[in-house]
């Protein structure tokens, strides 16, 4: 029998996602890193205009470029960079706000784990007048702690719905 998505579980996981988003919006990056598993896979591929049909299958597979192709080690490097006090792209820091919606749980193939899909709107305001609007979808693989007390993110698959990226850089996290 497949595990039920109860309101309690939905609420528990949404609170986890919202708390994670708040850590990023507050620039509490070390605490954020603590939410991921050691074997984290963190991917944000590039989108292209490469198929003609609005109906049916997704774009043909093939070699892909990525904005992020990271693991816990490299995500940690990115945080270390911000901690040096010389990461100009974030000095002063971007004002970010992450809106998480359409949170949809489906049981993962491993008992107790869940694939959590959502859509995100990542708003960035920088310096005097720069504004970036980054929107896409996300699927997180949530794995319970050994002691089952709380969740960890084992995998994050993102999309960013833009052909040519309209932001001058991606100095923030998704």
């Amino acid at each position, binding site marked *: 029998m497949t595990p039920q998505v109860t309101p309690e579980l939905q609420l528990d996981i949404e609170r986890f996602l919202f708390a994670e988003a708040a850590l990023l919006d507050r620039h509490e990056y070390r605490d954020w890193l603590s939410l991921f598993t050691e074997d984290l896979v963190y991917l944000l591929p590039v989108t292209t205009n490469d198929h*003609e049909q609005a109906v049916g299958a997704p774009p043909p597979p093939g070699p892909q*470029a990525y*904005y992020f192709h990271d693991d816990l080690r490299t995500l940690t490097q990115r945080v*270390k*960079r911000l901690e040096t006090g010389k990461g100009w792209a974030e000095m002063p820091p971007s004002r970010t706000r992450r809106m998480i919606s359409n949170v949809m749980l489906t049981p993962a193939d491993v008992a107790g784990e869940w694939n959590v899909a959502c859509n995100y709107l990542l708003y960035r305001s920088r310096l005097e007048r*720069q504004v970036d609007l980054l929107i896409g979808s996300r699927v997180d693989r949530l794995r319970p702690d050994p002691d089952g007390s709380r969740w960890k993110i084992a995998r994050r698959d993102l999309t960013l719905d833009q052909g040519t990226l*309209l*932001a*001058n850089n*991606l100095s923030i996290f998704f």
Partner: protein
Amino acid sequence: MDGREPITAASGWTPESIRALVDVQTGTLDPRIYCDEALYRIELEQVFARSWLFLAHRSQIPKAGDFFSTYMGEDPVIVSRQKDGSVAAFLNQCRHRGMRLSRLDHGNAKFFTCSYHGWSYDSAGKLVSVPMEKNGYCSKLNKADWGAVRVPRIAEYKGLIFGCWDEQAPDLDAYLGDAKFYIDVMFDRSDAGTEVWGGVHKWVIPCNWKFAAEQFCSDMYHAPLSHMSAILAVLPDGVPPEAAQWPTEGLQWRSPNAGHGTGFHTPDDQGQLLGAIVGPLVAQYLMESRPRVAARLGNARTTAVNGAHMTIFPTCSFLPGINTLRVWHPRGPNEIEVWAMAIVDADAPQDVKDCWGQGITRSFSPAGMFEQDDGENWIEVQRVLRGARARAQPFNLQMGMGNEQSDERFPGPLSYVFSEAAARGLYTRWARMMAGESHEQLARPNEGVS
């Protein structure tokens, strides 16, 4: 029909006032070259329509019918592999009413059929069919005259496909000159050559294209400070901070006349820094391949070219070793689109290719730990130039003036690695083209640059 006339008529600029913008005697630069609308419109004609521009890497269109959509300046072009293996490029614009022929980034197609009225072109841009040709055009339309506008000059060097609009321009080989010696460091490491890993990063930076082109041409100077945070971040734990010390020895080369330039550090750090940036697997692979590469390129280019940057005038730039390749497509005076590709050895093991491609992504791409800070600097320089007093202040281009040197291992002219000689060369080339010098004149060395 001449696109230039009303532009220059209304621009208020003359060859003399344009030349005066770049003063290599005093080593100063008028920043209006970065923000003046009229200068930009002249640039599209005098620089972009007369220079060899990077179109695509050979590996992006391997099979007959493969095409890649790119830009020459602001002009969309389709680069397409022909049945005979040659490459054709033509404006991505229907000759009837100007509709874009293909809205795909890349693909494979025998024909490009316009979605407006259905004119159809073959993979070389030849107009092959026209609806209502008989009834509507009374068979009077001369299809041969109305093919897509071909890029008349196409040439390839070591996998890099270039195109040029100008019939009078010298051939690519002469245009590159000694730049080839330095290009080979990245693109001629083996008979297999190189290939693009993954796809293309495309993003928008609101800054003038020359900031980017100059930096990759001549600016090792910014690296220690602009990128300090990334260096510190990628250093393996336990490595002493001294290791973060940026090397001080090295050389810079500038083209005598063509505006190209490169710089690099000569001390051999055994790929340590590169390993930290793109991954130990790549560093190890590079060390192992040294004998093979040395056999082709010699020792100097195998061990004494580290952390290199290079620009082929005007907008093709790359970093040998880190292996990012990019074009700075201009979008008005105040904006560029960066199109960046990860380059790997075609005959490297797949795990090395993947490590390399991912390492490039994490260091030089919109989210790259190094690239992020470049974008921050460029956009702020550009924003400040909205100011009337700000754009009246000369920029300083004096580093290393009158200090060129030579090294039997490398073609010259050479300078110390921290120098702006190559920048002075780039801007001088720019001013000469903008002032309308003929290709014969442009073949002569830049005067006064040192």
